[in-house]
C-alpha cells in the first residue's frame, strides 16, 4: 500500500491532526477553499482552519499516482465539492461521452458532497480550448443546455449545480436576460445553481448593470453553493472598465459587500474561496476563508435575532 507520508512531493514530514473527525457527506454552511497541491502540508497541519475543499474534476482523471492518492486522503478529512471545468455544457455539438464517462468514474469513487459545472462551452469539434466561453441567451440555447444538463445528471446519477459565467462580450442575438436564462434552465433540468458572486460583479461591471439588482432578481432558492474570487481590472478600447475573472488576487471589497448583500437575501450557503493563478502562501488563502466565515457567522447572528 501507499504510505501517506509520501503524499507530499518533498520528504518534509508534518503533524497530522487525529482529532479531525470523519465528515458527513454534505458541504457545511462554512467557508471552503479551492485545493492546490502546494498547500497540502499546511492543510494537514491545521485541518480545522477550513470547512471543506473544492477540486477541479479534470485534475483527478489520471489513473493513479500522487494526485489521486492526495485526493483519497483528503476525502477522508473534508467534505469535497467536485467542480468540472471541461464538460462544455454550452457546446453546440453533443457532449463528449468519453469525458462524461471519466467524470462518472471520478464521482463514483470520490462521492463528492457537491458536483458543479459552468454555463459555458470549451470544446469545439475535437479541440479543448481551456477557457469558459460565452453563450447567447436565447430559447434555443436554453433548450440545448437543458438537454446537456439532463444527460450529465442521468450519467453521473446526481444533481449538478450550474455556475453563472463572467462575461466580457454580449451577443446581439440574446433575447433573454441571464437571470431568465438560468431560471428557465434550472427549473426545466432540475439542476441547482452555483452563484459566483465575483462573476456577478465582473459581468455586471462589464455589461453595465447593477450587481445588486441582479442578486435581487436571482432565483436564490436554487443556490447550493457560493463562489468568491479575485479579478483584475483593465479597460477596453473605449476607456470603459473591463474586469477579468483571473482568480489571481484577493476578493475585493465591493465583492465582499455583494456577498453580505446576498447572504441577507438568500441565507447562508457553503462558500468557496477560489484562487487559481499567482497562488499565494496558505495563510493568505486561509485568511480569505476566515473572512468569509466571519461574514457567515455575522449573518447567522443577525438572522437568529
Amino acid at each position, binding site marked *: *500500500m*501507499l*504510505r501517506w507520508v*509520501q*503524499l507530499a*512531493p518533498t520528504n518534509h514530514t508534518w503533524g497530522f491532526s487525529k482529532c479531525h473527525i470523519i465528515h458527513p457527506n454534505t458541504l457545511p454552511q462554512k467557508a471552503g477553499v479551492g485545493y492546490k497541491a502546494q498547500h497540502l502540508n499546511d492543510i494537514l497541519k491545521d485541518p480545522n482552519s477550513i470547512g471543506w475543499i473544492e477540486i477541479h474534476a*479534470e*485534475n483527478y*482523471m*489520471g*489513473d*493513479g*499516482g*500522487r*494526485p*489521486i*492518492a492526495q485526493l483519497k486522503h483528503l476525502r477522508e478529512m473534508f467534505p469535497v465539492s467536485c467542480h468540472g*471545468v*471541461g*464538460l*462544455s455544457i454550452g*457546446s*453546440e*455539438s453533443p457532449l*463528449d461521452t*468519453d*469525458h462524461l464517462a*471519466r467524470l462518472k468514474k471520478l464521482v463514483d469513487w470520490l462521492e463528492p458532497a457537491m458536483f458543479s459545472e459552468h454555463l459555458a*462551452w*470549451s*470544446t*469545439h*469539434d*475535437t*479541440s*479543448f*480550448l*481551456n*477557457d469558459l*466561453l*460565452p453563450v*447567447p441567451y436565447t430559447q*434555443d440555447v436554453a433548450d440545448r443546455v437543458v438537454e446537456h444538463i439532463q444527460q450529465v445528471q442521468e450519467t453521473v446519477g446526481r444533481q449538478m449545480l450550474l455556475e453563472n459565467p463572467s462575461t*466580457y*462580450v*454580449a*451577443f*446581439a*442575438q440574446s433575447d433573454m436576460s441571464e437571470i431568465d436564462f438560468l431560471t428557465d434552465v434550472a427549473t426545466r433540468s432540475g439542476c441547482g445553481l452555483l452563484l459566483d458572486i465575483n462573476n456577478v460583479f465582473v459581468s455586471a461591471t*462589464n*455589461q*453595465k448593470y447593477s450587481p445588486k439588482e441582479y442578486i435581487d432578481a436571482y432565483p436564490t432558492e436554487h443556490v447550493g453553493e457560493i463562489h468568491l474570487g479575485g479579478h483584475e481590472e483593465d479597460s*477596453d*478600447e*473605449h476607456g*470603459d472598465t*473591463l474586469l*477579468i475573472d483571473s482568480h489571481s488576487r484577493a476578493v475585493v471589497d465591493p465583492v465582499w459587500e455583494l456577498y453580505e448583500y446576498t447572504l441577507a437575501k438568500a441565507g447562508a450557503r457553503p462558500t468557496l474561496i477560489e484562487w487559481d493563478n499567482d497562488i499565494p502562501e496558505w495563510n493568505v488563502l486561509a485568511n480569505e476563508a476566515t473572512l468569509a466565515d466571519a461574514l457567515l457567522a455575522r449573518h447567522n447572528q443577525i438572522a437568529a435575532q
Partner: protein
Amino acid sequence: MSAFQDTFTSALLDPAQPTPNGLIDPNGRVAGKRFDVYRNNVVHSLIDAMGDAFPAVKKIVGEDFFDAMAGVYVRAHPPKTPMMMFYGQDFPAFLRGFGPAQSLPYLPDVAALELARRDCYHAADADPADAMILTTLAPEALMETRFELVPSAVLFQSENPAHSIWQFNMVEPFQITATHEWVLLTRPEMDVMAHNLDAATYAFLRAIQNNETLAISADAGLAIDPKFDLSTAIGLMMRTQIIHQVKS
C-alpha cells in the same frame, strides 16, 4: 447555428481574424478588446500548461523562446481532451519540424522523456509481486515464465543523451559523456525514478513488457550484447519492484 462556435473558435486561435459578428459591448459596439480577453485566456492558459508539462525544455531554451514556441504549438495543436495534465503529446514531433529549434537537435528527445516521466507519474497504482517466488521455481519453469510489469514501469530510449540533459537541467550540472541512452522509469511510491540501462537490458525489458517468456527475452538481450547477464537483469527487475505478477 453550429457555424457560430466554428467562427468563434477559428477567431480565437487566429489573431489576424476579425471579432466574430454579433459580439458586442453594452453600447452595441463591436467587442474588439473584449473578445481579445478570450483569445488571451485560451492561448496563455495553454502556453502555461505546456510550461508545466515540459519544464526541462523550457529551462533549456529560456522562458521567452519557450513561450513563443509554445504559442505556435498551441494554435496548431489545441488539446484533444480537457485533461490538461496529458496535453502536449505531439510536442516532440512538432519540435523535430520547428525551424528555430533545429540548433538543439536533442530537444525533441528531452520533450519525449518529459512525456514518458509524466506517463510514469500518472500511471495506475499496482502493488509489486513478491519476487521471492522466482527463487522457488525450477530453472526450466523459470525460463518459461512471463511477467506483468506494473503500469508505472516505462521504458525510454533516445539517440541523444536526453536523460543526462534532463538531469543536468533539473537536478544538477555534470559532465555529460553519454550518447545514446536507455532508461527505465519507475515509481516506487509517488516520485518518478530513473535507472540507466544498457542496450541489451533495454531490449530484454522491452521483450518482458511485450509478454515474452524469460527465455525469449534473454535472447533479445543476448542478440544485442553477448555479455548480457540474465541474473543481473532479473536482479534489476526485483530491485526496482516493477514485477506486478509472475505468470507461470
